[in-house]
């Protein structure tokens, strides 16, 4: 569907070299890599907004390298949504219809459909400045979808949302994927996000493609330390899901919400784990006792590894907290985390 051949792009501080990628039709492809790796530039090149110095871009077998963006049928949704501030929600979404000659009624019907799909009916007459982040994002998605693009480019769609909205939006994305024939290419710097959504993906680092493959491949069999480092998110566990708990060997982790799948992964960010030397009376649903196996300095923070039975957790603490709790290797400690801090996929 999308083929990038030997793409070279130099744009100020961003440089992409030798980009060779093939993305299948109707795929949900993840472009991953740390911030500043040139992922957005690559998206803009595919959309025709940045001209590559070398190489070719093909979509559906057709070479589009020299085609202006308006003739490509490729929609882009930016991280900051880039809604037109002088147009209301309906006019924002309708925008693309002006340039695609077709029956006016069909266009309006499509608008209604999208307003419904993205739950925007109530906001139709509002202006972007009055919308929340999540609402703006749904408008941007609807606007991108109205032209029935061959390819939909998403630039870090989840990074600006708070965790609860993320889950909701992930569902919308999954639903969208089933409703459209568009090939979706999404950029993210968060591997957990990619794992949750994508079929296949590529890790980009310093302007080069490090590895391409299925999410599982990237996660289980990283071919370079860079990829390993990137996907090696801390506190990522394979679990058995049951009602509202995730079973991790003998540990039962409270999720606070119900999940249908029986198997999956959960992940907890190290900064979301709270340590204490005593059992806390707190609203945090999950509390475990373990022993510190290792303490690693990370500059301003310390990474504290705690063994709870067979399972190793990793938490981040400040130097102040480290000294105050007199943390040392081998010391017994309690760890806590909220059920809302658990990412499930």
């Amino acid at each position, binding site marked *: 569907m999308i083929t990038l051949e030997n793409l070279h792009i130099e744009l100020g501080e961003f440089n992409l070299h030798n980009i060779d990628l093939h993305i299948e039709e109707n795929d949900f492809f993840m472009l991953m890599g740390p911030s500043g790796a040139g992922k957005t530039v690559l998206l*803009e090149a595919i*959309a025709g*907004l940045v001209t590559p110095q070398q190489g070719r871009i093909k979509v559906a077998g057709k070479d589009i390298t020299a085609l202006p*963006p308006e003739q490509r049928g490729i929609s882009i949704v930016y991280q*900051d949504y880039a809604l037109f501030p*002088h147009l209301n929600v309906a006019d924002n979404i309708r925008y693309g219809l*002006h*340039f695609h000659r077709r029956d006016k009624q069909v266009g309006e019907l499509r608008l209604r459909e999208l307003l419904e799909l993205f739950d925007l009916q109530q906001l139709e007459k509002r202006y972007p400045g009055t919308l929340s982040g999540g609402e703006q994002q749904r408008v941007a998605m609807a606007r991108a979808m109205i032209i029935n693009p061959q390819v939909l480019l998403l630039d870090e769609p989840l990074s600006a949302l708070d965790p609860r909205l993320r889950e909701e939006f992930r569902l919308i994305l999954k639903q969208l994927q089933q409703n459209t024939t568009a090939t979706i290419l999404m950029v993210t710097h968060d591997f957990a996000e990619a794992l949750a959504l994508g079929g296949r993906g590529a890790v980009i680092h310093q302007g080069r493609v490090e590895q391409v493959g299925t999410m599982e491949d990237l996660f289980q069999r990283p071919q370079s330390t860079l990829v390993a480092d990137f996907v090696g998110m801390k506190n990522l566990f394979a679990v058995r899901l049951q009602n509202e708990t995730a079973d991790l060997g003998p540990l039962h982790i409270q999720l606070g919400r119900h999940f249908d799948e029986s198997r999956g992964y959960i992940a907890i960010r190290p900064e979301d784990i709270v340590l204490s030397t005593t059992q806390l009376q707190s609203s945090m649903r999950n509390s475990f006792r373990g022993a510190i196996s290792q303490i690693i300095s990370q500059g301003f923070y310390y990474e504290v590894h705690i063994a709870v039975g067979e399972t190793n957790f990793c938490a981040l603490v400040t130097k102040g907290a480290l000294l105050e709790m007199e943390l040392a290797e081998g010391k017994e400690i309690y760890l806590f985390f909220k059920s809302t801090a658990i990412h499930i996929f």
Partner: protein
Amino acid sequence: MRHKDFFFWGTLACAATVVAFITLPLVQMLSAPSFEALSDAILDKDVLNSIVLSLSAASLAALISFILGTPLAYLLSRREFRGKRLVEGIIDLPIIIPHPVVGIAILSVTGRNHWFGQFLTDFGIRIMGSVTGIVTVMVFVAIPFYIKAAKEGFDAISPRLENVSRSLGASMFSTFFRITFPLAWRSMLAGIIMACARAISEFGAIVIVAYHPMIAPVMIYERFESYGLKYSQPVAVWLIAICLILFLLLRILTTRQKKNV
């Protein structure tokens, strides 16, 4: 109440001095002529003609600045290219150069001894002592103000809006008229008013290029030279009143813009 210190009073004194320094001469001049002198002045055909000429030539200059300056302002806002600093420096030149020098410079390329002047003459275009000359000088001094204001307006619009517009099927032209222009028109209008006001106030360059037909500042100067302060004041009052209205418009527009953002 808290004790206000030396810094506070010092600042206040300086501020008051500056405001008084600007307003006192203006107020004095505005209030000096009698009502009779004012109405006499505006009924004087020469005065009226000079003011009309000033206004219309300045408006035309502002319009030309708008047409020629908009693409350049857009280019400067959106593109990085070698020599951009140089171009920006060149655009600033008319602001820096002494006004009579501007007049002499324009005459030197449009005179008969210069190939360009010869070229213009062949087409029947005369700069020296003509309305064309007045407008030419006005564009020269006013266009930097327009370009700066318009560029600022374009700078405030994220290029991503234009990117999205194009990805949705709009050509560069459609994008400009549907997205960029509706978001930047206030800045562009402010720039036009700025350019217009600057063009009206030009004297030094115009007096060299075209003493006749007489624009208002030249008329004021002539009356002052030939008849003295008392006869030049009423014309000046009329010109100032018009300039003030223009600037008032500018203030209203820019403050409204801030409210919207």
